[in-house]
């Protein structure tokens, strides 16, 4: 067992806390802050996996850009909290045991799993990543630009005022 393994599990477990808080908070601002904490936690998980580039981009993009955008969006809209508390929805009584059951099934199966990809760890260095991205996965990488294009078009379509009014 690699020395970073316990740290990985610890950090991963910690990430769940802000994730739950984000959904549970009544106040949207608190939710947003919990979300930022969650993003940072995910960056930490990447660090424990030696994926420094991913960690850095996680911090830059998610924590730096997206979170700020969302905070602005929340502050610019008038309503600050949801009308109804989402967490203790009547469905949650059923959802809790079901979630637990799914977690148990997944935990049992995946806990004892043998992953062959894990046995020969790939080096997630920046250079390696770049070579993968621009060689083997060049096509999906380029295709992702179209996804971004659609996202921009969508933002314009949904948010922009009608041109003639």
């Amino acid at each position: 067992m690699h020395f970073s393994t316990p740290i990985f599990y610890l950090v991963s477990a910690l990430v769940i806390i802000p994730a739950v808080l984000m959904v549970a908070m009544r106040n949207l601002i608190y939710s947003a802050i919990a979300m930022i904490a969650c993003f940072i936690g995910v960056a930490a998980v990447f660090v424990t996996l030696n994926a420094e580039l991913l960690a850095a981009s996680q911090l830059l993009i998610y924590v730096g850009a997206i979170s700020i955008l969302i905070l602005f969006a929340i502050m610019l809209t008038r309503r600050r909290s949801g009308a109804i508390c989402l967490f203790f929805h009547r469905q949650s009584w059923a959802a809790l045991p079901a979630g637990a059951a799914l977690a148990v099934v997944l935990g049992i199966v995946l806990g004892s799993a043998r992953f062959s990809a894990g046995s020969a760890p790939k080096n997630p260095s920046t250079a390696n990543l770049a070579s993968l991205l621009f060689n083997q996965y060049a096509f999906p990488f380029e295709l992702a630009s179209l996804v971004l294009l659609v996202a921009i078009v969508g933002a314009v379509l949904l948010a922009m005022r009608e041109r003639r009014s």
Partner: protein
Amino acid sequence: MKAAVLLIPLLPLASFIITGFFGRRYFKDKSHYLSVASVAISWILSMYVFIQVERGQTLSWQLYTWIAAGKFHVDIGFLVDELTAIMLLVVSTVGLMVHIYSIGYMHGDKGYYRFFAYINLFMFSMFMLVLANNYLLLYVFWEAVGLCSYLLIAFWFPKLSASNAGMKAFLVNRVGDFGFSLGIMLIFVTLGTLDYSSVFAAAGTIGGGMVTAICLLLFTGAVGKSAQFPLHVWLPDAMEGPTPVSSLIHAATMVNAGVYMVARSSPLFAHSHTAMLVVAAIGTFTAIFAAIIALVQNDIKKVLAYSTISQLGYMFMALGVGAWTAAMFHLLAHGFFKGLLFLCSGSVIHALGGEQDMRKMGGLRKKIKITYWTFFIGALALSGFPGLSGFFSKDAILSGAFSGGYWYFWIVALITVFLTAFYSFRLIFMTFHSEPRMDAKVFAHVHESPPVMTAPLIVLSVPTVVAGLFLGIPPESGHIDHFLHRVFAAAIVTPEHQFGFLSGSLMAISAVVGIGGILLAWHFYLRCPFLPAATCKRAGRLYTLALNKFYVDEIYFAVFINPLRRFSRWLWRIVDAGVIDGAVNGAGWLALGAGRLLRPIQTGKVQGYLFAMFLGLLALMVVYIILTL
């Protein structure tokens, strides 16, 4: 001959297209010109084909390849043999007569052009059905004739009962067709072909259980289309359609498609004793069951409808006991005389201005003479009066059952002969004899139908009288037996035997029973008119049962339809509970505006969907765990 075979269906199709598209605007009350002309030519061509076949010329013609997918291969093509020729004869003759009759009957109807277009479409489909050379093509036109039949049943759709009857016919037939399509699929999968000749050539190689399964599934289709118990419920309701339709589709042609299909599949059925027995049992039961109901019905068309069901039951009994030729013989004879009877009833209804209840008829004998006499001839044939076509064909079935060793079917069939004769003449006596029971004003207006309607009656009564003499003498080796011998050669199980003492006495018995039924009806309805009411009171519960058609409809509602309805509502509440909320809220939030935009999302709908997905995943995993344990 190829040209003739191609033109027989295509002419009505062309007429359908032209009349259907241009009828409303251009033809209007002249819509029948093209229609009748096309069917008349088809009739002449059918006669020509019949004569050619009689001279020994048959045709098997692949037109083009429909499905050629790997090992599966279905052609579109025609098969013309003796069986086809007989069907063509019935379909084209009755079809032509009904077309001519409809000129008078439908005169002035605002859907005049529509009627002729539909009925042309039906003729096309029915011709194609009998000409098809494989099961898939048969199925396609099997559905197509059904479709035309629903269209025509619901022809007067502003009447709610008419459109409901059309719907019912469609749905009940779906049940039969469900089995039929599975049967065809099973043939497809076991033999890799649907072509008649290859299927029948390979019939012996299918395993015993499989051939029984195939035959029973095919028979399910026949049960639906030919209105056999327990799927007979649509046919009486189908009487909501115009009477020429009842005559053509629901008596003489389409309902015979089931009989034709089973007869066509005789090489398959011959390999399954079980299936044959089922066919015979269902047929026999339906014959007597429907005859009992027919005894007490008061609607003139309903009596004839139940009579049709009962007579079709006879044919299936004949098929089931291996008397293939007898079944086809009866199909032919029944096609003529039942078509005639329906047209006559239409003439009666026409004369009375739409009245169908026999309790409000009577005494019409003198007023509408042609209708009366042709009706009388038809009823005699139906009762099996010696010398008429029905007598010979019915006798062929009875002796087939008896000599095949199925004496129990024979007894039931004999009782049915008696009942048939009784209700036929109950119909005659209630309608035409005794005192008129309608308003004097109505009675004064009673008038004979125009020649365009009575001429088909007269024409159809000719084969009703003579068909038996021409085809059926001597019994069991008459003209029709020789004609059809080649088709059924592979399937005939009982050896042919000569007309002898046994057959002669059987014939005498059935003649006596038939005449007995007529006499009893006479006794009941003319000599002692108080007797029916008294008997009904005596019969009590049985009478109520028969009057209500043994509550089959009600049972279906209670057992199938209502539970299905309840089930889907239940499912709706469980699975899609959000819908009501959504609809109720929907009106609200559209009015209240953007403030409530997210409300439907927050009232649990999306969470509900996500939760369902989540549970789905869990359930799949659990299913797997259970399966591997």
